[in-house]
């Protein structure tokens, strides 16, 4: 009964979304109709939330008469993974997407009080239209509530690799981020319809972009962290199509955050900001399509369904096509904004945007290259080396110019002045590189440049902070007063830029100087990696709620001192017949020792031996800490009172 109610409430959500679209567009001039549109938006969200709750309920009570539950759940699964199973499948994840989509629509209806009436109606109208597309897809092609005629006694369980705490919460964050750009998309289209892309418009768009970008940052970091410790390959980013799919909207969103600031503060770059707003959500939809359709061979795509991929592609073409179509039609008529000198903060932001967009384009090209090549009759693909050689230099260039931006004035800046404030940071970064070149073995010149850039970013952000607070120049109490009086937006920027630097340091150090060793070991045997000595003490059996495991006990010593005792497992899930590796990780400061127990074999004498892999990942914690700092920066900026108060104030000015 619950499943039918769930299916019904998705349909209800669809009907309400249709009404939302009609009422909102009809209500741009009439207050009452617009109010009905807002009500429909909230209702559509509530209906979707109800159906999503019922889906989770079906998973919790293991109702195997529902096909989706039977295919993705199992009674022996821990509760968290039963709940996570609700979004582990194609149908469930699309419903989650719809939940986020209608949720954002409802959020605009509730929190958008300060918006001009007609703009708000149009935003809700576009958001409703997007909701119609995806809810219709859910109802007609991907219902998560389809029943089975013969309910099986036991379910097929969720892919064991997905049974992990980080991955259980990864999709909600990721989708909240992906779909957050839908609001920005709706604002862009509404602005184009009104023919009004100005400072006030950018001010309304900024918080939504920030929220989506922050959530996406957290989502991607969680996914990367999961890949790092769950896949047991010791890597954290593989330039896999699925990863790129989430990375492209992130890059576009980062560019949008900066260009929206120029539009907000100076009224310039309006057309470009709209273009990026459309692009960000298009990349989100492209991501959903790539991940869910299986057109690209990915190592970690789950719940792939080629047939419905075509439908998703159609939805994407429809939404993005009408968006960019309207853009092409209306953009030439947009008011041109303020003029700025070649050396100014605007120019720095433009340069940031050029570099980020170029980097996004190289990622997009590399991701779609197998399709391009196939269309031309080839079967070539690109791998990690391609992305490293295209993306990394562009990002390095971005990092090089980044610290200048915040130190330049709007309209007309002073490079020499900025240099004066940055020279200490530059010197320290250079010293860092030279020291690394001299001290860290083996020598790695490129990595030293990467370290210098990381240091440059962090110190550059601090230099800007020092400039704002007049640190080292004004007396202590005044510095403190200025520090506490700093707007949260400024803190957010400093944190985000520092986060990028922290990430660069970690990524460079880990990639250049990680140690790894793999050897077949019997019990009591050992292997060496770098200065570390690993002994496989013993291997025993272990039993989990829904798996059997071999658990190795390993001791790592350095110079005779024990530095790590780890118990990696190799788990076998009888339900799906799958094996997974559970790595053991010991943190040592910023570094991690990473141990994997591989498969069991027999040596020449028939004794059991295990393939053991050990990694020493220096500074690897920074790789995950950096993005978290960025997300924290986003959160700080989002909590800035100026961002919220301004909405109301601007309205008076505009009205």
């Amino acid at each position: 009964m619950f499943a039918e109610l769930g299916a019904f409430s998705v349909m209800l959500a669809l009907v309400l979304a249709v009404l939302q679209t009609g009422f909102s567009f009809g209500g741009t001039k009439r207050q009452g109709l617009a109010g009905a549109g807002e009500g429909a938006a909230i209702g559509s969200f509530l209906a979707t939330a109800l159906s999503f709750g019922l889906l989770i309920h079906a998973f919790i009570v293991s109702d195997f008469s529902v096909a989706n539950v039977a295919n993705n759940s199992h009674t022996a699964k821990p509760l968290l993974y039963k709940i996570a199973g609700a979004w582990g499948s194609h149908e469930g994840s699309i419903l989650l997407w719809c939940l986020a989509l209608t949720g954002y629509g409802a959020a605009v209806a509730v929190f958008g009080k300060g918006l001009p009436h007609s703009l708000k109606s149009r935003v809700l109208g576009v958001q409703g239209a997007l909701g119609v597309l995806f809810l219709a897809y859910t109802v007609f092609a991907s219902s998560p509530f389809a029943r089975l005629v013969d309910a099986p006694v036991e379910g097929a369980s969720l892919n064991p690799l997905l049974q992990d705490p980080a991955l259980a919460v990864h999709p909600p964050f990721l989708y909240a981020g992906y779909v957050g750009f839908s609001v920005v998309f709706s604002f862009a289209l509404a602005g184009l319809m009104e023919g009004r892309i100005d400072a006030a418009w950018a001010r309304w768009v900024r918080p939504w972009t920030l929220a989506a970008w922050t959530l996406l940052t957290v989502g991607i970091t969680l996914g990367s962290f999961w890949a790092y410790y769950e896949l047991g390959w010791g890597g954290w980013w593989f330039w896999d199509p699925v990863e790129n799919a989430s990375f492209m909207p992130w890059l576009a969103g980062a560019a949008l955050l900066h260009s929206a600031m120029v539009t907000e503060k100076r009224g310039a770059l309006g057309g470009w900001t709209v273009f990026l707003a459309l692009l960000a959500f298009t990349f989100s939809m492209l991501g959903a399509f790539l991940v869910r359709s299986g057109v690209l061979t990915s190592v970690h795509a789950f719940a792939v369904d080629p047939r419905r991929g075509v439908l998703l592609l159609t939805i994407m073409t429809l939404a993005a096509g009408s968006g960019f179509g309207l853009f092409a039609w209306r953009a030439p008529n947009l008011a041109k904004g303020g003029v700025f000198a070649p050396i100014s903060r605007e120019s720095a932001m433009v340069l940031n945007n050029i570099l980020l967009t170029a980097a996004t384009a190289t990622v997009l090209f590399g991701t779609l290259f197998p399709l391009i090549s196939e269309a031309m009759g080839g079967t070539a693909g690109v791998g990690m080396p391609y992305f490293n050689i295209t993306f990394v230099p562009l990002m390095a260039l971005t990092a090089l110019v980044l610290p200048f931006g915040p130190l330049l004035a709007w309209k007309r800046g002073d490079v020499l002045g900025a240099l004066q404030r940055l020279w200490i940071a530059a010197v320290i970064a250079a010293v860092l590189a030279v020291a690394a070149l001299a001290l860290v073995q083996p020598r790695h010149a490129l990595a030293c440049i990467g370290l210098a850039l990381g240091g440059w970013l962090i110190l550059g952000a601090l230099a800007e902070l020092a400039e704002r607070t007049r640190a080292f120049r004004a007396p202590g109490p005044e510095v403190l007063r200025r520090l506490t009086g700093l707007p949260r937006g400024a803190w957010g920027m400093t944190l985000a830029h520092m986060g990028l630097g922290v990430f660069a340091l970690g990524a460079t150090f880990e990639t250049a100087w990680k140690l790894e060793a793999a050897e077949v070991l019997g019990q009591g045997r050992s292997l060496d990696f770098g200065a570390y000595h690993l002994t496989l003490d013993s291997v025993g059996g272990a039993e989990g709620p829904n798996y059997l495991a071999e658990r190795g006990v390993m001791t790592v010593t350095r110079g005779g001192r024990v530095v790590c005792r780890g118990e990696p497992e190799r788990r076998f899930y009888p339900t799906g017949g799958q094996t997974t590796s559970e790595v053991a990780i010991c943190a040592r400061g910023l570094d991690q020792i990473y141990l994997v127990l591989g498969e069991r074999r027999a040596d020449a004498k028939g004794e059991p031996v295990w393939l053991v892999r050990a990694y020493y990942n220096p500074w690897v914690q920074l790789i995950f800490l950096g993005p978290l700092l960025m997300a924290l920066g986003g959160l700080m900026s989002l909590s800035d009172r100026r961002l919220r108060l301004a909405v109301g104030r601007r309205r008076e000015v505009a009205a």
Partner: protein
Amino acid sequence: MRFWPKSRKARQRLTILLAVAPVLALAAGLTLFGLRDSISFFYTPAQAAEAHVPPGRAVQLGGLVEMGSVRKFPDGGVSFRVTDRKASAPVLYRGDLPDLFREGQGVVAEGSFNSQGQFIAKRVLAKHDERYMPRDVAKALKAQGEWRGDGAAPPAYSAPSSK
């Protein structure tokens, strides 16, 4: 400075263009360089034999793991044969095989042929979805009429089959 336009608007546009052009050129240059560096072609064993892939060139070899061909050595090495049911090629690999590597399953090995015609794999891919058949493999097998309809099948709405 005859080329430097008088109007501030035009000047701004020109500046932006001057900034865009080098970055675009750099991105395009890097892309072409990256492509030259890392294009790896995909062959099934029969196609590889036909094409006479030169030893040492980085390629992908895909097909099914031949039944009964997997041998694991105590030193951590593995040898197996990849087949497309028309021809097969020996593969040597050192390292941990993916969890889902099994005889009769689809795999893609990345590496190069040596002068003896053995494929020295640097990486062996088998996805962590049990229904996985690498797309290239499925396509090549289909083209050769060897498709068994397995692989990336859509989730069937029936009682889960025993695996």
